[in-house]
């Protein structure tokens, strides 16, 4: 029997790895840093700016990573914004109504978020309603519940005394704790998706669920796990948000939806040839954060940030589409 030759080409070559098609956002980031350094001289290019960037990006990063999981499996989850809001309000409510320990309040809150994830599973996987519509609906329900708990007020009683803010404000090397949570989650999800059987099953479910099923992939189970994980991560993001600002606002959750989608989709164009991945997602979050801070330091009004968000998304996705070889 012939000993099979090890075939060439188990990895890409160096030049392809560094091309704009693969890491265009890195070049874009470098370009932005350059532009803002010149536009707001003395203000932008500093260590403090970097720390602010990282700290401000932590919660958007957690939100984007929450969304990454179901998208990789081929399901939408539009309820996670409402879950962020719910978690913040619920945690604050617990702290203001007899729960003394911040840790206990957090655990109870995450348990409830897990249940919300299971509701999504019933709607999308068990009943079979389209995930886009289904989670849009569950999100609306969660938002309603959140508003009900908070009485449409901002809750703050009990939060500041509970030790919860320590979760957000503790610094390590001058950078707040949540940044490290986000970095750790990026690594965990990245390794999960790329180095484990479950991760391979997730991508298979997202790229061709029928083929996956025939190969024995438990698509329904994988997607169920993804929806639950998304809600739990979103819940964690909501708790961190309340810890950060010391109060809980029922309306802020949904505002994380669009930046998260932008980051995950733009991130898919980076590093992994079109596949949703955690590294690209975080890079995209930092890109958007850079734009936001840069525009603020350059004295621009708040609406310019929205323009930047849209433009950056178009550039990142457009560049990868235009440079793709024509089939």
């Amino acid at each position: 029997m012939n000993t099979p030759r090890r075939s060439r080409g188990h990895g890409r070559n160096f030049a392809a790895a560094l091309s704009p098609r693969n890491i265009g956002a890195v070049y874009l980031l470098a370009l932005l840093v350059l532009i803002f350094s010149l536009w707001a001289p003395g203000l932008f290019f500093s260590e403090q700016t970097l720390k602010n960037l990282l700290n401000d990006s932590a919660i958007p990063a957690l939100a984007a990573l929450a969304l990454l999981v179901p998208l990789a499996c081929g399901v939408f989850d539009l309820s996670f914004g409402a879950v962020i809001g719910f978690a913040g309000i619920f945690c604050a409510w617990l702290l203001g109504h007899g729960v003394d320990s911040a840790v206990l309040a957090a655990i109870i809150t995450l348990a409830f978020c897990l249940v919300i994830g299971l509701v999504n599973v019933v709607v999308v996987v068990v009943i079979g309603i389209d995930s886009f519509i289904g989670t849009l609906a569950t999100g609306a329900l969660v938002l309603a519940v959140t508003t009900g708990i908070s009485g449409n007020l901002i809750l703050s009683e009990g939060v500041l005394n509970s030790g919860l803010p320590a979760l957000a404000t503790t610094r390590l090397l001058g950078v707040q704790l949540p940044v490290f949570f986000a970095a750790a989650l990026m690594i965990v999800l990245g390794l999960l998706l790329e180095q484990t059987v479950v991760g391979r099953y997730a991508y298979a479910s997202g790229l061709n669920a029928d083929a996956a099923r025939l190969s024995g992939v438990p698509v329904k189970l994988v997607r169920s796990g993804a929806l639950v994980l998304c809600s739990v991560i979103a819940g964690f993001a909501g708790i961190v948000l309340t810890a950060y600002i010391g109060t809980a606002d029922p309306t802020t959750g949904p505002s994380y939806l669009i930046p998260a989608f932008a980051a995950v989709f733009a991130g898919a164009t980076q590093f992994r040839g079109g596949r949703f991945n955690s590294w690209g997602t975080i890079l995209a979050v930092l890109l958007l954060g850079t734009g936001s801070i840069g525009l603020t330091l350059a004295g621009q009004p708040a609406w310019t940030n929205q323009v930047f968000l849209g433009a950056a998304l178009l550039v990142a996705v457009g560049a990868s589409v235009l440079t793709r070889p024509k089939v």
Partner: protein
Amino acid sequence: MATDLTVLRDGKHVFSGPTNGLTHDRLVELIVGPASAQAPQRDRSAMLGHGSSAKPGSGNQVSSSTGVIARAPYAYVVRGLSTKDLEDVDFTIHSGEVLGVCGLDGSGREDVVYALGGAVQSQVSVELPGGGVVNKITPRIAKRCGFALTLSNREPSSFVGQFSISEDLMLPSLAKSARGGMAVRRGLDARTVDAWIARLDIRPARAVTHMEKLSGGNQQRAIIAKWLNTKPLVMMYNDPTSGVDVGSRRSIYELIRAQVDEGTAVVVASSDLEDLTSVCDRVLVLVGGRLRFELRGDDISEPRLLHSMTDGLTSERVDTD
């Protein structure tokens, strides 16, 4: 239903005329051609030269082309197979034999292998070689029973287009090769995939190539490798040569005979008569969802097959005017 008929064969016009007085046999002869009706099945005798029965009690022999160890003979008994298109089909699958399944579109022929592979829901009772009976078949159960279903590369669900050859090939076997069933062993998988690429001559020989970029014949071979890698006891194909060029067609036939030479059981459902005449030892003919005929040996010829598949569908025209 027709009053007049035109027959085309191999792109040429062969016959035009009224259907009145045209017998079933004559019609078959027109479609298939007189030469084919009489000539011996050249391809088949060459193919079957290796010997078509399982080597009895052959012990452990590693084959060069599929790496399968020869086994003692075994059989699967299928009873009462019913799906949307099939009605109560009974048959037995034997190791070391290629069983063909044919029938017109709508006869349910593909459902035979789809059901056993868990791709469609069915009511069935399958007696497994070790004893034990299975009544419900899903893809995971099928794998556990030793079935493997290789779809035609034209089916969108036969492979994940944006996966590399390596990722798609290993997908059904991934849990077995991973450390602790969880951590993918890239090095080990790379060697496994490279071995298949070499054995089946898949081009380009780069395991990172996306499946959707391969040509039809190479895709089909990669899909075959994917399922051979699960070391099945029954390897099943549906339309294995559609969308495949002539050269690849021969190599697929040789591959099928090689599997059978090692003692694996093979089932080939096909709409292509050449598939059936070239490699099958026995052919089940389905008409209208029911098993009507079983052809063996020299009876497996294009005219006989066509005649059987269309049995009862042509009738003497009742002259009403």
